[in-house]
């Protein structure tokens, strides 16, 4: 009678996704449109950017994830540059959404209705995990689809589909990792605005990675605190053994965070 039911998790998640469909679809459309706008202009941006960026400080270019101008000649390289920045936006969406779906239930007290049903706390928590993952994938796939369409339209020979997907999914792990962080924070407490805290974690992580790049050998350790650096499009494409190890470690950390969030969620008072 106390048994965990995956069926309940799926039912709850479907209900959650239905209740949040406007927000998710809004983000999908926005991300698709913004990506399309940038990527369809690949050819004209190439010439314009090379002229403009020549005079820009190296540090600003590095902040934008641009290490070399040669990327502008290559559709996948150009995509990687844009992707680096778009991933900040997608990460902020996914953390505020993931933390928000847990936080909102308690803040608005709908958790009293939800928990009056024949459900366990674990089923509720993991339904939020499923909802967050599905919402994140929908927004990410919308971006990838948009960039892929533009790649076919104006990428030419430099649009290599396999490389494109490798960059998309390996670097996409950055936002996926932050989804786990937000779910962990939402699981352990809703007494603070966990969405805002999670967004701050995303921004801090990006800045730490940038700082690590700027400081070179003195600040090298900071790179390990930033998935934005470890799983940058450049590293995603290279897919060195070091990147694979980082991927494994970060996946393990994410799973541990979600699991810990679940354990605390099971044992804490609801904030109602």
């Amino acid at each position, binding site marked *: *009678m*106390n048994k965990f039911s995956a069926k*309940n998790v799926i*039912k709850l998640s479907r*209900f959650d996704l239905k*209740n949040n469909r406007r927000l998710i679809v809004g983000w999908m459309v926005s991300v698709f449109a913004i990506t399309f706008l940038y990527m369809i202009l690949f050819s004209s941006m190439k010439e314009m950017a090379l002229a403009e960026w020549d005079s820009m400080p190296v540090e600003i270019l590095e902040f934008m994830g641009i290490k070399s101008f040669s990327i502008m000649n290559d559709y996948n390289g150009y995509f990687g540059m844009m992707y680096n920045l778009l991933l900040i936006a997608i990460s902020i969406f996914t953390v505020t959404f993931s933390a928000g779906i847990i936080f909102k239930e308690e803040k*608005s*007290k*709908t*958790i*009293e*209705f939800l*928990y*009056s*049903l*024949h*459900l*366990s*706390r674990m089923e509720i928590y993991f339904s939020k995990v499923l909802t967050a993952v599905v919402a994140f994938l929908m927004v990410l796939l919308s971006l990838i689809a948009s960039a892929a369409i533009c790649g076919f339209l104006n990428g030419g020979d430099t649009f290599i589909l396999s490389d494109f997907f490798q960059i998309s999914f390996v670097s996409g792990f950055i936002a996926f990792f932050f989804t786990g962080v937000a779910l962990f924070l939402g699981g352990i407490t809703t007494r603070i605005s966990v969405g805002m805290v999670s967004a701050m974690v995303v921004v801090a992580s990006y800045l730490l990675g940038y700082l690590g790049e700027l400081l070179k050998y003195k600040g090298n350790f900071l790179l390990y605190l930033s998935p934005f650096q470890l799983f940058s499009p450049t590293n995603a494409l290279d897919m060195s053994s070091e990147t694979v190890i980082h991927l494994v470690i970060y996946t393990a950390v994410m799973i541990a965070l979600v699991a810990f969030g679940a354990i605390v969620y099971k*044992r*804490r*008072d*609801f904030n*109602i």
Partner: protein
Amino acid sequence: MENCIQVENFTKKYGKFTAVKDISFNVKKGEIVGFVGKNGAGKSTMIRCMTNMLFPTEGSIKILGMDSIKDAKAIKSEISYMPSETELYERVTSKELFKFALSFGKGEMKQANKLAEYFELDINKKISELSVGNRKKVSIVLMFLNKGKVLVLDEPTSGLDPLMQNKFFSKIKEETEKGVTVFLSSHNLSEIERNCTRALIIKDGIIVDDLNMDEINVAKIQSVTYKTADGKAESYDYEGNLNKLVEKLSTLDLNFLEIRPKSVEEELIRYYKGGEVHE
């Protein structure tokens, strides 16, 4: 008779603040127990601990022999809970909400339709379009749909008009005749008086009295009000020998005198006011 609800040495603390302190009580099968107390007395805290929204700091709560923490999910299939605040998902209709709730339970949509008709609820309107009273009706229907053996209700009639309150308690009486046990908190003292078999009074986190409604109706306490010729007026509760009371009052030059048995509602108000009883 078996105990449906067993609360033993239950304490709930929030940091240094003790919301409920070491309370114990039982509720037997078929009883309708009213849980009465001022705002902030600890009623909702107690109820939320019963339903595992909150965890006791000390002590235990058992419902139908099951532990409120270890068997939280199993308890859910045996109880029906109605929170005091009717916060529901705004963008769905009542019908969608009933279907959603039924997908985890044992009832049928037919039953939901019947209950909605009984409580005069339009199930095709979105929750956001419903008034406070109508949202309460949605909450009531959801509660009845679960077909619990124990009903745990937190201020179930707040926001309802008098007609709906009557309908609600008619339904409750029907359920108790089938052997369902009811534990409800309320500020409506006349409602407690009319519908409950027992009243537990909680004050500052402590149960101060456990009143059997039938025993209260035997008028032990008299309400005394008098005015004297020189303008002195007094009003108090008296419990004791009536002859002694009359003897004492006969020494006064009275203009007005009223001695009447206290109603249950007045008795319960005494706990709210913290009044004393003269002897």
